């Protein structure tokens, strides 16, 4: 009987210690501070040259049946996709500055570490999902959007490389 009591006591102590440790671990992991919620800076190619690149992506990828829909991981706002503001109407008015900024964050925030490597010249653009899928180097529900010679791809690649090929971007926007 005496031994049984010791066993029970030791068991309860063990449970208490385990529970305490688990609670501490969980509470430590579960706390999110305001700093954690704040937007983080993500390395991203030129903001100045982004508007025309965004237009190219909006046209080829940002329609409402593709990435111009709220549920998409790579969400693209714009004239012909979902609008950022409830006051904007689909199909009316140009893509706004806020929408352009959100689109750039979407592209660069998809794989921030890989994008940072591309921006610093330490990574290859082909490591990015956002370049592989539209060229079907990786399975893509939307199929092949660009061939390697497509002006749209030349435009996007040149932005990633740090010097936008404006002529290629404009040529893509002229396509139906």
């Amino acid at each position: 009987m005496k031994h049984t009591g010791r066993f029970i006591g030791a068991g309860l102590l063990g449970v208490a210690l385990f529970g305490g440790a688990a609670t501490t671990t969980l509470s430590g992991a579960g706390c999110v501070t305001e700093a954690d919620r704040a937007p983080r800076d993500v390395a991203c190619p030129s903001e100045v040259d982004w508007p025309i690149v965004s237009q190219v992506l909006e046209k080829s990828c940002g329609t409402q049946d593709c990435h111009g829909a709220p549920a998409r991981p790579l969400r693209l706002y714009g004239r012909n996709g979902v609008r950022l503001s409830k006051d904007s109407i689909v199909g009316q008015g140009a893509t706004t500055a806020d929408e352009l900024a959100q689109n750039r964050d979407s592209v660069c925030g998809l794989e921030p570490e890989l994008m940072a490597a591309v921006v610093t010249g330490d990574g290859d653009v082909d490591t990015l999902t956002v370049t592989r899928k539209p060229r079907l180097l990786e399975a893509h529900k939307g199929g092949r959007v660009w061939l390697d010679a497509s002006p749209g791809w030349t435009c996007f690649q040149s932005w990633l490389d740090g010097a936008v090929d404006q002529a290629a971007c404009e040529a893509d926007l002229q396509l139906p």
Partner: protein
Amino acid sequence: MRPAGIILACFVAVGGALAATSCESPVDAALLEEQGDEVSGVRTGEFHRYGQDCMACHGGYSSAPVFVAAGTVFATPDDDIPVSGAKVILTDALGNTHAETTNCAGNFFVQEREFEPQYPLNATIEYRLPGESSQTPVHRVVMGSRINREGGCAFCHVAGPPSSTSPGWVYLEPTQPSTPFTVPTGKNGGQCEGGPSHGSVL
């Protein structure tokens, strides 16, 4: 139980479990459910469920015939008036085209055996205003963006006026013309077998 019996029972159990779980798509099932019941008095067919998302049933998930594109054309963004006789022209990435004309419920549909488009598609609608003769040049409205993968108009063109999440249903004119569009009649001037005359499904 003998070993052979146990093995057979396992096969039956596993097979049954797979059969019960493998064909269900919660997303497609929910979309089907959203469409609701048929309007009373309208048969299942080319005139039914105007304005709804055709691909909920005709996208291959149910046993209904599979369409590659389908939808309803309305007169204006604000009037529940489908348009009969509008010519919907689809052009795919290879330059192949296919045209369908809307029926009295405003519906059109393209079956798989008729057209196998290479996405993206461009959509154009040609039409005449009420009272215009066949000699009058057609009016033409061209879709502002590509169709990249969804052939059902209502996937994006949700019923109602344009908003921040949808361009609204497919319409021809921003407002009613001087001779206004009216709800189309059916064959020989009789009531159309579908459309708002039977009660709105929108």
